[in-house]
């Protein structure tokens, strides 16, 4: 049995996809299925372990940890989704346009992307946070800007290879419009790679967004977010109560492992498929 779209990714690919889908569902509805109010503070319960229906206990300010993990899934997962959606869309358009038109247009786009490439994502995020104030939106914007040249570069390469295929030349000679060739033929033929790159980027985006929140420049306390929770739990670690940091860190690692493995398998498949 094989889900269409995951064909050729093996059992592991399917398991990873299941983990990701589950995580995304939690990201969408997590705040509503949380057993307790994730923001309810009771300092008397700080670092108290699992108790009754508080399945994994409390954090340093006495908030229910499980509820905070569930609620925190939203920013931790939907933030990266937004980053990837923007970067992949803009990156694909730039890549296909550069590959199709070539010449000056390609030179200018490539040069602009090269300059943008000189800014690491986290650095852009710090500068943007300084300018617009720290917020999730600033961080998402910064990472989308940082990732666009990356994905555009990769896709430009494969769009150029596809552009050089003779079937594209044959359709040009037939007189089919450029947009039709790109939309009906070129993009569908590199779609596998676009999806694979999206998955790889999702992993990076999750790590970087969480890191930015960890630095205090993304999602702001007291809002629940996995990156924020790792940061808030740091004091607990030094005092011998590592559960908050570890739990949030584990959530991040599990999702990123799943995303990376799936991305790798999708990339393999896209390359194998390229005849």
């Amino acid at each position, binding site marked *: 049995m094989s889900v269409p779209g995951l064909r050729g990714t093996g059992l592991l690919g399917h398991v990873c996809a299941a983990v990701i889908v589950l995580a995304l569902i939690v990201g969408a509805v997590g705040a509503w299925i949380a057993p307790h109010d994730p923001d309810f503070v009771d300092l008397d319960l700080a670092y108290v372990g699992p108790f009754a229906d508080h399945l994994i206990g409390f954090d340093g300010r006495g908030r229910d940890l499980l509820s905070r993990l569930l609620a925190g899934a939203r920013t931790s997962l939907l933030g990266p989704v937004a980053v990837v959606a923007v970067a992949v869309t803009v990156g694909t358009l730039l890549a296909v346009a550069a590959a199709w038109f070539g010449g000056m247009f390609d030179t200018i786009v490539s040069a602009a992307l*090269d*300059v943008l*490439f*000189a*800014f*690491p*994502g*986290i*650095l852009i995020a*710090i*500068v*943007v*946070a*300084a*300018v*617009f104030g*720290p917020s999730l939106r600033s961080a998402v914007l910064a990472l989308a800007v940082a990732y666009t040249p990356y994905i555009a570069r990769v896709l430009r*390469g494969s769009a150029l290879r596809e552009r050089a295929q003779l079937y594209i030349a044959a359709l040009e000679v037939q007189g089919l419009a450029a947009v039709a060739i790109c939309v009906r033929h070129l993009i569908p033929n590199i779609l596998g790679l676009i999806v694979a790159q999206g998955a790889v980027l999702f*992993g990076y985006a999750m*790590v970087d967004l*969480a*890191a930015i929140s*960890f*630095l*205090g*420049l993304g999602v702001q306390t007291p809002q629940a977010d996995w*990156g924020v929770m*790792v*940061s808030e*739990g*740091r004091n607990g*670690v*030094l005092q*011998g109560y*590592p559960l908050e*940091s*570890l739990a949030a*860190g584990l959530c*991040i*690692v599990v999702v*990123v*492992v799943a995303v*990376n*493995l799936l991305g790798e398998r999708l990339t393999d498949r896209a390359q194998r498929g390229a005849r």
Partner: protein
Amino acid sequence: MLRFLLRRLAMLVATLLVSSFVIYGSLYLAPGNPIAALTGGRTPSPEAIAILEARYNLDEPFLVRYGLWLKGAVTGDLGVSIPLRQEVSDLITQRAGVTAALVLYASLIILVVGIGLGLLAGLRAGAVDTTVVVVTTISAAFPAFVAAIVLLLVFAVNLGWFPATGEGDGFVDTIRHMTLPAVALGFTSMALVARVTRSSVREELGREHVQTARSRGIPFRLIVRRHVLRNAAIPITTIAGLTIASLIAVAAVVERAFAMNGLGAYLVTAASNKDFAVVQGIALVLVAAFVIMNTVVDLLYALLDPRVKVGSRAQ
């Protein structure tokens, strides 16, 4: 080769110029009034405003201020931190050493462990390979700050082998303080380098020219050394260079986690305090380091691959 070098240097300068403009420009556009920051919210007298504007060049148009800043930057003068009333370049030099040492140490770990594991897995199929693949899959997904927390917990808090915070004095003490941060910083990149090493070794082993060498009776270990490793060095250099350059930014996270007084952590503090002169200064230094690193990788690439001819760019 000389033309390639000149071209690459020209590109480096152009990128740095554009980057400096972007950095300066974006912070110039930021909302907020530097005079208000200078006077700490009190309403200053018109004379005071005039004096402060002249002192900090606030009365000049944007391009002139950019020009002055850039001119200063080239000579090592990055202006004055308005809230701290200190030279930005002093603030940077005090902290640059920590970040540089951290990145260097992490790079060493990445190169030795990453390439070592990759070679092992690439040349030995079976259990060794599988182990390396599993280990690197997990470590590739470990963000630096999570790795930092886990290392803190295990080696600093529970085992007490390494200190949890600070930078240390003297060589041995510095190494002791830097080990955990460096491992945390290099954790992901090490895995990345290992995977690229493994796959390029595999790919080179399957090449036709390797088959030629086999058909000519060259012993396997010589084939590995002369053909496989030499050729795989090209992609390995590229990925190692790129990923090490990216550490320059990620260092902020690790410095923060281990409460170290480095450039990155200070950049974050300055960004939170809206200390724009410091943000500009540090951002410029970090971008410059990043771009120079990438240029060095490109040049290495050209040295390693004779096919990179004059005028053509490494893709």
